[in-house]
Structure formats: structure tokens, C-alpha cells
């Protein structure tokens, strides 16, 4: 007999959520889980939005999460979820994601996987469940996985509802304490994130920090005005006026080359 691997407390019950856009892939996970009566599958979701809704409503212990899904991918789901479930990533082939799992010691299954591999991942997830290491840091994971690739859209979660805001629609972003206000035409969105953590993930050719509290989408800039107090104001194409700090002005001058 080999050394018994540590297992979760006997008799403990778990709830689980599956998210994969392929019917057969979900069926396979269900089949593997059928041998574990202690795990109760709450829902089997077909895309990221469903997964967010189900997770918000049912707070599972375990989450089996595919990376490539329509709507929201696995990393986006992770970013939007409240900390809680122990996550097991399931993916077919994604070098960037693999690197992220290894760097951040996340549990993962590579499709197709053996029964042994599944058992090991499940045991590991059960152990982590409820502990401090259950929850991989979503931002760090996503950053490793998206290495070099810039954000193309922002996601905002309000309860079980998710709003997707393409960056192309955003006019400017304003800091409001722990939140950022995204201004997109007549619409405004509040997102729980700091301006400083958002800035490096935006394309510097399109977005520029013009002030401690403002990031501007460059093609929305109509003109720069000098005020009586010798400071500058950015006037946007829709007439909005935003303050420009001294360093913001220097960055603008450098980027626009004038």
C-alpha cells in the first residue's frame, strides 16, 4: 500500500458547479463526479455568464471551469466571481493559461484527462476548499495568462448581472475612491477597481492618464485650453471639460508630438 494521500475530512459534503460550452465535455465531468456521492452538482453551465449567475446564487464549494467559452472566458469568470469556490481549470490547449496555472499553483485538468488525473485534481480541490489557498488570485492569473496582450473590454458585475463594456466605446475613465467611473457616451458604469491598476492594462496608444483622477481616450480629445490660473483643460468632442495636470500635460505633449 502506498502512502495515503491527505484527504478532506470524511463525511464532509461538497457542492460543485461545472462550466464548459461543450455538451460532451460537461457530460464527461458529470460521469467522473458520479462516482463521488459526497459531491453534489448544483448546476452545469454552458457559458461564462451562466457560471457567474449560478455561482452568485448558489455559492458552490468547487468550480470546474473551462477556459475557452463564449461570452466570458474562464479568466474573466474568475475575475468577476466573489472569492469562495476552489477552482479546477479545465482546458484543451492554451500555452499561456498553462503557464499561469503552473506559476500560480492552480489546479487544472488538460483535456482529455485520465480518471486518475481527475481524482487527484478533485482531491486537491477538496483539500483547498474553504482554506486560504482555495482562491487563486484572479488578477495575477489573468495577467500571466494574458501576458503582453492588452485589455479589449471591461467587465462590470452587479450581483448576478454582468455588463461588458468594449474599450472602443469609452470616452474617459474617472477615479472615484475604490471605483472607476467609465463614461461611454450617454452611459456611465461603475467598476470596483483603482485607476492605477487599470492604467497599465490599457493600450497606451489609445488611452492616456491626463490627471490623477482621469484617463482619457485620445481620439475623443478635441482641444486643449489654457485657463486663467495657467493650468490646462482638455475639451472632448462632446464638449466635456476635464482637468489636465502638469505631468498629464507633459505626457499629452509627448504623445501628440507638438
Amino acid at each position: 500500500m502506498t502512502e495515503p494521500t491527505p484527504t478532506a475530512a470524511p463525511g464532509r459534503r461538497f457542492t460543485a458547479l461545472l462550466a464548459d460550452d461543450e455538451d460532451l465535455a460537461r457530460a464527461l465531468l458529470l460521469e467522473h463526479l458520479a462516482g463521488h456521492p459526497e459531491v453534489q452538482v448544483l448546476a452545469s453551465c454552458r457559458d461564462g455568464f451562466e457560471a457567474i449567475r449560478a455561482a452568485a446564487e448558489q455559492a458552490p464549494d468547487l468550480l470546474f471551469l473551462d477556459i475557452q467559452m463564449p461570452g466570458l472566458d474562464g479568466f474573466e469568470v474568475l475575475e468577476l466571481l466573489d472569492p469562495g469556490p476552489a477552482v479546477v481549470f479545465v482546458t484543451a490547449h492554451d500555452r499561456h493559461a498553462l503557464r499561469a496555472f503552473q506559476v500560480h499553483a492552480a489546479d487544472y485538468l488538460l483535456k482529455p484527462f485520465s480518471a486518475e488525473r481527475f481524482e487527484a485534481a478533485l482531491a486537491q480541490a477538496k483539500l483547498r476548499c474553504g482554506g486560504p489557498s482555495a482562491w487563486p488570485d484572479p488578477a495575477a492569473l489573468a495577467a500571466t495568462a494574458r501576458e503582453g496582450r492588452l485589455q479589449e473590454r471591461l467587465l462590470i458585475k452587479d450581483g448576478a448581472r454582468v455588463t461588458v463594456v468594449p474599450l472602443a466605446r469609452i470616452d474617459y475613465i474617472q477615479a472615484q475612491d475604490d471605483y472607476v467611473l467609465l463614461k461611454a457616451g450617454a452611459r456611465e458604469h461603475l467598476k470596483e477597481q483603482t485607476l492605477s491598476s487599470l492604467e497599465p492594462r490599457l493600450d497606451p496608444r489609445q488611452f492616456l492618464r491626463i490627471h490623477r483622477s482621469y484617463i482619457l481616450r485620445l481620439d475623443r480629445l478635441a482641444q486643449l485650453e489654457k485657463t486663467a490660473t495657467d493650468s490646462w483643460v482638455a475639451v472632448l468632442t462632446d464638449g466635456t471639460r476635464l482637468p489636465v495636470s502638469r505631468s498629464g500635460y507633459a505626457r499629452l505633449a509627448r504623445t501628440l508630438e507638438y
Partner: protein
Amino acid sequence: MHPVLGSRARLGTYLLAWVPGVCLLAGQFLAGGWALRDALALAGPSCLLASALFLSSWHLCRVAPLRPDRTLSLLGTWAAASACMGTLWAGAVWLLFRLLLDLGLLGGALVVPVLAVPELLRLAGIGAVFHIVTVAFHYLLIAQERTREAETAGRDLRELAREAELKALRAQLDPHFLFNSLNSISALTTLDPPGARRMCVLLADFLRSSLRLGEQQLAPLAQELELLRAYLAIEQIRFGSRLQVDWDVDPRTGTVLLPPLLLQPLAENAIKHGIAQLPQGGRLRLRAHLVEDPGGPGRRLQIGLDNPMDPDAPAPAGLGLGLRQVRLRLRGWFGPEAGFTAGPVGDRFQVLLTFPESDHD
């Protein structure tokens, strides 16, 4: 190595080209009152000497390549070089003349040949002209060599490009697709064993026909469609009811030739970036028709693929590259006769390609 000395045929031609030179020179000596025997006895070795001496102009031609913007400086170089070489040669001929005279090989006839200053000056002039002609000949030789080199390089390059293209095509087979398909088989083995076997066969069909097509330069559309059918059947097993496929193919298009593996990447794009991004899925439409060519006597093949897409999804990174590759390959084969458009039309993404019909004979 000098190109003339590199090949016996070229050396023979070069020496033969000097025969008129011998005649010219002998003519000069005859005009000076020499006997024919003496004139030939000196003209022959002299021209042989010149032919060897003036081979050095090859280096001149390499150092001073022909350039239209430097005509004047080139003319100067040639004139100076030819004057020098002409004089040098005239001196050598005079030495030769003395040598032959001392050996008694000249002057046996009634008239004693004379080679004085005026004759020597004329000889230098003739030498300069000979040299100029040799220079021109060398430029010709170099140009010819360049052309041949360029042709070889072009052929190598084309060969290389084709190899690279095929390698790229093989690599293009999406590993994500393969691993997901294997995962589907893994699920089917207990859920639906006959289905698992069917999927294995489809996957083998797909791999086999993509390998076979990858070896060809042009393949009939029927083969490409066969590959596409296997590919789409696999994807339909993976995506279930989310992927529907409409075929609208004129059977007469089956024999039309096109670069292989051109359509499969387009179908892959349509699924990966279009239908797979939609939770409810959608319908992939595929059309192939022959139409009369409005600008010519023949017919053109028209192929269209379109799929629904999420208008809010960001433009995927890999899409542009794949489409550009298809466009380049089409252009590469059919030149300006090829037509290729790709882009959103309403809420669908549409790719349209047309090119002239060419059949198996």
C-alpha cells in the same frame, strides 16, 4: 576564378572571337608593306598575348559596375585603362617582334619588316580598341551571370516559400481542435460507444485528407470539400445543436482546381471566432458556384462562407493573419484574376472568393 577560364567551351568561344582581331592586325602589317607570312607570324602571337593580357579587364568590370548615374567617371576609367593596356601591349608586341626577328622567324622574305615609332603608336591605338571591346564583352558576361544567379535564387526562394507554406499549413491545424476532439471521444466511449468510433474515423479522415492535400500544389474542389465535411462533422459532434451547416454546392464545381487547404482555415475561423463565441450558436453557410466570367471567355468559381458573429466581441487577434494568408495564396496562384473579400455584413461575417476556372485535363 575568371569565368572564361572556368569552362572550356567559353574559353574556345573567347579565343575564336579574337580571329577578326588577328585579321585586322595582319591587315595593318600588310598595309605597312610586310609580307603575308611575316604579318601573320606576328599578328597571331600578338593577339594571343592580348587575349590573355586583357582578361584582366574582368577585375576592372567588377570594381566599376555599370551605373547610369556614373557614366562620365566610367568612361574616364575605361579610357585610362584602355590607353595603359594598349601601350603596354604595343610594347610587348615590339619585344615579341625583336624576339622573332632574332630567332629568324621573321624577315625571311624579300621585304624586311620594320616596326618603328609611328607603327608602334598605331599599335597602341589598336590595342586600346581591342581592350575596350574586351571590357564590353566582360560586362556582358557579368550581366549574364547575374541573370543566371537571380534565376537560381528565385527558384530556390520559390521552393523555400512553398515548403514554408506547407509547414505553416500543417502547423495551422489547431491543437485546441485536436485535443477537444479527443476529449469528446473520451466522453463518447461510455455515453455512446458507436459514436466514439464514428468520431475516431472522422478524425482519421480529416487528418489523412489534410496530409494528402498538403502535398499537392493544386487540388480539385471536391477533395477540399471532402476534408471540410469531415472537419465540420467533428465540430458538429463537439458543439452539438449549436453548430448547423448549410451546403449549397453546384456539383459541377468539383473538378475546379484551387490551392489546397484554403477553405478549412476559413471554416475554422467561422467557428472559432464566430459561432463558438455565441452561447446559442448559429448556422455556417457554404456556397460554391460557377458563373460566367464578365471579362473573359471562361467561367469563374465563386465560393462564399458566412457565419453569425457577436458584433460586440473584440476583433480576435488571429483572424486577420489567417485571412491574409488565404488572400496571399489566392493572389499567388491566380494573380490579379483572384478576388477576395472578407468582413462583417450586418450581424454575419462573410468571406467571398472568386477565381478563374481551371480543370483537370
